[in-house]
């Protein structure tokens, strides 16, 4: 039985903060939950399913946040696959709703790496030595930016991709961010600005990287009967897919992402193809992340991503595939170092017709929100959500 349309996103809310030194992480989660429930026209008491990931404070999955928000749940899920967790949560919430395990599912993300002074992408963070890979990776300084830099270097070698082509992705994001009053980087930049910015980890420059921000977001999903009773535009979940990719025992191949595997089941469930998509939210931890995911989701052939993103093709009103019209992680925010939920929230805005008027895609009836969590250079999860305006 296909789950196509078994759940609707009825609430979506993004925290406006980008720096929150005076708030706790739990508070940010709860503020996001309150915002998304108000957006849906539902209350805290309606929630019977709660979904979170590793950014939720407390050591036992959802327990601390369920306690803090005083929720009475009959279904919880804390699958943690980094920044892609929230696309995964949409899929799991849809499954739970279809199975009758909950009627109203709440998903939250929040964090404050900026206030905590994290050097998110440039300083390796030691982890649990019992993680089987840890002692074979940490000594070599894996620091996020260089794990994505290795992918970009190989992509350039295999396909002739250039730094200028990657830069177009940041240029497009900056054209969108100028309209977002909450975005951290609102200045429109040029290809020259990007390639002349300081090298962080070759071949990725400072402007190839996303911002480090505090903040968060939340989503509310429910079953069709409840969605129809609410006074909001209806955004139907029509396709989901998730898949991890890793080092495959040593058969390392950094030329593609897990989107190659998470995309096909989502397209199949949705019954549509990439050319049907009017708006795309694509995870943008780095410019190379966007380029590779676009290829792997089928928006262009493998190796053609550089040509596809160049010359403004991702700019709303200019190119063929408007992407990340909130400015994305590259310019607006990357709360908790996890950009998955903001991707879904902007897709919901576009489908509802609530994006910034300068960037609203006309007749936006089909959108994709794809997430990547972890690191493309070692192991990560890809998760794909396809949404339809009903």
């Amino acid at each position, binding site marked *: 039985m296909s789950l196509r349309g078994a759940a609707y996103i009825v609430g979506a809310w993004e925290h406006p903060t980008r720096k929150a030194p005076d708030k706790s992480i739990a508070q940010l989660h709860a503020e996001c939950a309150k915002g998304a429930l108000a957006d849906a026209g539902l209350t805290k008491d309606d929630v019977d399913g709660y979904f979170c990931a590793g950014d939720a404070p407390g050591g036992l999955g959802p327990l601390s946040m369920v306690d803090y928000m005083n929720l009475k749940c009959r279904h919880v899920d804390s699958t943690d696959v980094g920044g892609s967790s929230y696309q995964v949560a949409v899929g799991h919430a849809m499954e739970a709703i279809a199975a009758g395990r909950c009627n109203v599912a709440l998903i939250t993300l929040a964090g404050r790496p900026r206030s905590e002074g994290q050097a998110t992408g*440039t300083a*390796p963070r*030691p*982890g*649990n*030595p*019992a993680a*089987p*890979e*840890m*002692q*074979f*990776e*940490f*000594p*070599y*300084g*894996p*620091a996020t*930016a*260089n*794990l994505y*830099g*290795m*992918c*970009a*270097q*190989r992509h350039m*070698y295999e396909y002739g991709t250039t730094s200028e082509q990657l830069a177009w992705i940041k240029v497009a994001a900056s054209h969108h961010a100028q309209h977002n009053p909450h975005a951290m980087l609102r200045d429109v930049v040029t290809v020259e600005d990007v390639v002349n910015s*300081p*090298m*962080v*980890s*070759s*071949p*990725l420059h400072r402007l190839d990287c996303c911002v480090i921000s505090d903040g968060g977001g939340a989503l509310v999903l429910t079953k069709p009967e409840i969605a129809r009773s609410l006074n909001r535009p209806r955004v139907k979940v029509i396709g989901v897919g998730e898949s991890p990719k890793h*080092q*495959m*025992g*040593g*058969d*390392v191949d*950094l030329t593609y992402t897990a989107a190659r595997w998470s995309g096909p089941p989502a397209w199949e469930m949705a019954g549509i193809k990439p050319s049907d998509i009017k708006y795309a939210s694509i995870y943008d931890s780095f410019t190379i992340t966007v380029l590779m995911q676009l290829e792997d989701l089928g928006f262009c052939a493998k190796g053609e991503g550089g040509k596809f993103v160049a010359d403004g093709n991702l700019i709303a009103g200019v190119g063929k595939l408007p992407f990340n019209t909130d400015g994305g992680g590259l310019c607006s925010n990357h709360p908790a170092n996890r950009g998955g939920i903001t991707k879904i929230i902007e897709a919901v805005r576009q489908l509802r017709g609530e994006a910034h008027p300068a960037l609203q895609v006309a007749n936006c009836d089909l959108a994709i929100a794809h997430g990547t969590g972890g690191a493309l250079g*070692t192991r990560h999860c890809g998760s794909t959500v396809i949404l339809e305006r009903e």
Partner: protein
Amino acid sequence: MAYVARKVGFVGTPETNPETKPFFDGAKAGKLMLRRCTSCKKAHHYPRALCPFCFGDCEWEEASGKATIYTFSVMERANPPYAIGYVKLAEGPSVLTNFVDCDFKSLSIGQAVKVTFVPTETEGVTMPFFTPA
């Protein structure tokens, strides 16, 4: 951009995971140790007790230390900068590593490299690094 030695971190000790202790015993003696499956005969990395291709039992062997660069990235933001990369061993598996004793600007994909050993900040723990052959 010349290589400058940096402090090499390590977490835990070789005893943390008894499964992989022979790798660190080998590295301390200047040997790059590799696991190979007794069933499907394929070598893998990082080392595991059970083969990640068929769950067969594996044995340790000493690798040749010969490899080619699969990819790399120079972390210029760090002080001193360092070059991370994957090398593809002559025996097959690709291995995460750093490149040392070289000009980072001269690194290229496909370049031949050989293993060398660098001590970490943890007493008695040495790791395999690679340098141009």
